[in-house]
């Protein structure tokens, strides 16, 4: 009696598993197929295309005012919170106290010693010591953050932009540890109370995901230059590094440029004309 009951249970269990597996497999299979057959997904005709997007920051044209304007514009265009803003207490009661070291920044100003800590120079010209540099994600060709991400939530697009899929990010922050440039920020809290004015053309993010400069991919797709380049008065030029005739390549050819921590081999795409 014992033996046959045991056998019966074993067989029943395995068949239940087998039968249960079929709809699970079906669901996965269906998820891969398209919901609307014969639909085409395509780019806009006015989208800006490049084989490898890059940026040149011309420090000769960069002033403190322009840098401030760039940071402000980027902040508005992407709904980046500023913890110095006072949230609306009626709309958001019960807010946790603000911690400024949990800030979010996509592009920001740094002095030489922090932008290029690997290029220490005791006798650096005063001019460069006082200059304001802009630092942001370098859209590396061999990004260590992409290598680190366990879900491919951050990935490199074929056109060179390192993007983040905010729906897939699990907030493990491994990419933040991997970035050699400190370009990534984490949403330690819900950013909405600290966004002064929400730009309707771009979503906000939610707490628990990592974010960084996405090279204004949404603007490039509509034929517009990145927000920072647009207000930079020529201090930031964006273009195709793989096109030898592009403006950006001509600039790099005509001037001496440096990049941040290039000895690490990540091959950053952001060049600085000194």
């Amino acid at each position, binding site marked *: 009696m014992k033996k046959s009951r045991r056998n019966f249970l074993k067989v029943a269990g395995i068949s239940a598993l087998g039968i249960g597996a079929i709809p699970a497999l079906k669901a996965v299979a269906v998820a891969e197929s398209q*919901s609307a057959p014969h*639909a085409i*997904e*395509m780019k*806009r005709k006015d989208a800006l295309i490049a084989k490898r997007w890059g940026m040149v920051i011309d420090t000769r044209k960069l002033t403190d005012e322009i840098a401030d304007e760039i940071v402000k514009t980027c902040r508005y265009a992407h709904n980046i919170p500023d913890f110095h803003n006072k949230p609306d207490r009626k709309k958001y009661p019960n807010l946790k106290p603000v911690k400024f070291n949990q800030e979010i920044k996509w592009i920001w100003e740094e002095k030489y010693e922090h932008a290029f800590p690997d290029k220490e120079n005791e006798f650096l010209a005063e001019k460069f010591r006082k200059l304001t540099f802009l630092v942001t994600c370098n859209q590396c060709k061999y990004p260590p953050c992409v290598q680190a991400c366990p879900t491919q939530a951050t990935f490199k697009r074929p056109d060179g932009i390192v*993007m983040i*899929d905010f729906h897939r990010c699990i907030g493990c922050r491994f990419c933040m540890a991997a970035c050699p440039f400190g370009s990534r920020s984490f949403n330690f809290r819900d950013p909405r109370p600290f966004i002064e004015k929400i730009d*309707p053309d771009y979503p906000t993010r*939610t707490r628990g995901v990592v974010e960084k400069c996405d090279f204004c991919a949404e603007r490039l797709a509509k034929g517009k230059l990145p927000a920072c380049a647009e207000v930079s008065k020529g201090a930031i030029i964006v273009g195709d590094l793989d096109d030898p005739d592009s403006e950006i390549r001509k600039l790099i050819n005509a001037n001496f440029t440096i990049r941040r921590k290039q000895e690490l081999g990540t091959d950053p795409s952001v060049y600085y004309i000194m």
Partner: protein
Amino acid sequence: MNKNAIITGLVVFIIAALLPFWINLGGTEAAPKPEISARAKAAGRCILDKYDMRADHMKLLGEWRNSVVRHSNRLYKTADGKIFTMSLSTGVQSCLGCHEGKAKFCDKCHNYAAVTPYCWECHTDPKEINQ
């Protein structure tokens, strides 16, 4: 383990498991009716027909997300030649650009079904941004 304890436990379990049904007995709610905006009525048909959209809109949005974020495509051309912008809430050609107002459209069915998709933690409803 005596018989009384087992039977009492069973009864408590059955009551607890069937509680959601008993609590909601008696009341009836009409089927949800999302408001179709003027613009949507003029367009006639969404990307798919009504019942497919209702069943598959999350799958479609997921495909759109992958296409936009990973392949930098922004336009979606259906089999009958109509072009949509693959976006939930930005621009006139997006979902919310046509079906204006999430409270009048999306929430009607979602509230009835008692689901709270977290789309709105990130995506903004153009009608609700009154800043």
